[in-house]
């Protein structure tokens, strides 16, 4: 499965990309809205994980531009953002129209939750190593004592 991760903060992008790669995902990283369009064009992602808060063109601008291309209307997008839900200024209908498959508040979203969300959206069959997810999940639960 190909994931396009749009994350402006490099160290964070590396952490999320490393995690998704352990699940067998092919991860492309874009750090701005402009480069995300180019990367999407080249890599044709199955799913996009998007931070809305970026310098210059923000994620909402990216969303409208991305959805204006017919070939990208069906690609599911996960909002994984520092912006709390009550400050999004996008209502449910707009989110649906923009094809937002899930909203995750980044500060409280663990790697496990991010992986589980992607897995639920794209379906397990699209994940190359779904067993890795379950193995990591069990391991992490064991480490956290839960």
């Amino acid at each position: 499965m190909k994931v396009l991760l749009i994350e402006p903060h490099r160290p964070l992008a590396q952490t999320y990309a490393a995690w998704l790669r352990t699940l067998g995902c092919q991860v492309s990283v874009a750090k701005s809205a402009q480069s995300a369009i180019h990367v999407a064009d080249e890599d044709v992602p199955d799913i996009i994980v998007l931070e809305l808060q970026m310098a210059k063109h923000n994620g909402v601008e990216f969303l409208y531009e991305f959805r204006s291309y017919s070939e990208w209307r069906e690609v599911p997008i996960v909002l994984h953002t520092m912006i709390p839900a009550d400050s999004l200024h996008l209502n449910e209908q707009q989110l649906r129209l923009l094809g937002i498959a899930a909203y995750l508040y980044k500060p409280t979203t663990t790697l496990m939750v991010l992986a589980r969300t992607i897995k639920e959206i794209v379906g397990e069959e699209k994940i190359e190593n779904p067993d890795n997810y379950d193995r990591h999940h069990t391991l992490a639960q064991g480490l956290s004592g839960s």
Partner: protein
Amino acid sequence: MSAFEYEPQERLLKALAEQLKIPLLQIARQSELAAIDPSVSFRSVGLTADMAIRLIDSYILGLQVQGQPALELEPVSVASMLQDVAHQLTPFAKQHELTLEVSLSGRYEPVMAQKAHLEAAYMALGHSMIEAQSGEGQSNVLLAAHRSAYGIVAGVFGASDTISADVYRRARALYGRARQSAPGMSAQTTAGVFIADSLLQSMQAPLRIAHHHKMSGLAATLQPSNQLQLI
């Protein structure tokens, strides 16, 4: 003190809280990843934590300055201060895949400043500029000084289109009120700029938009020590 007088401090605190969310998040997720994958290094976690602590220290120093009538200024070497700051910020810049360089055009006499405050200001400014440049896909950040008719201009510079005088003016007016006060600076990168500004203002050297060669950034004009010039 009225609520109105508190407002700028509250805004700065809010901006600081926004900026600190990122390193805390980085530490949390990196730790989660390390628990799963033992090959993940904890070095970057330590560095992220150190930089966040430095930013908090700079903020506290800025608060302390506001309670004081006037800072006792002393002669400080700009060149060695910038070199020290660059030395401390280099690992952070590398973490963001950026190169941090020092550019000094000539030799400078000492400036009148408060060394700890000056260093804290440039650390906070450098921190914010590195984070702002990181998302821009730029490759280097410059700590630089040059002489002008008004004094020695020392600042942090990056890609030419990251920040303009207009953007900075609007950011100054909006900071803490809007989630993203300027297109070139996300909510997570503004606190360092305003902490630096408050520290430098206490030395009568507020931050302004400046250019160094073909790069633009934020700089303060520091006054050379006339007394030492005569020696």
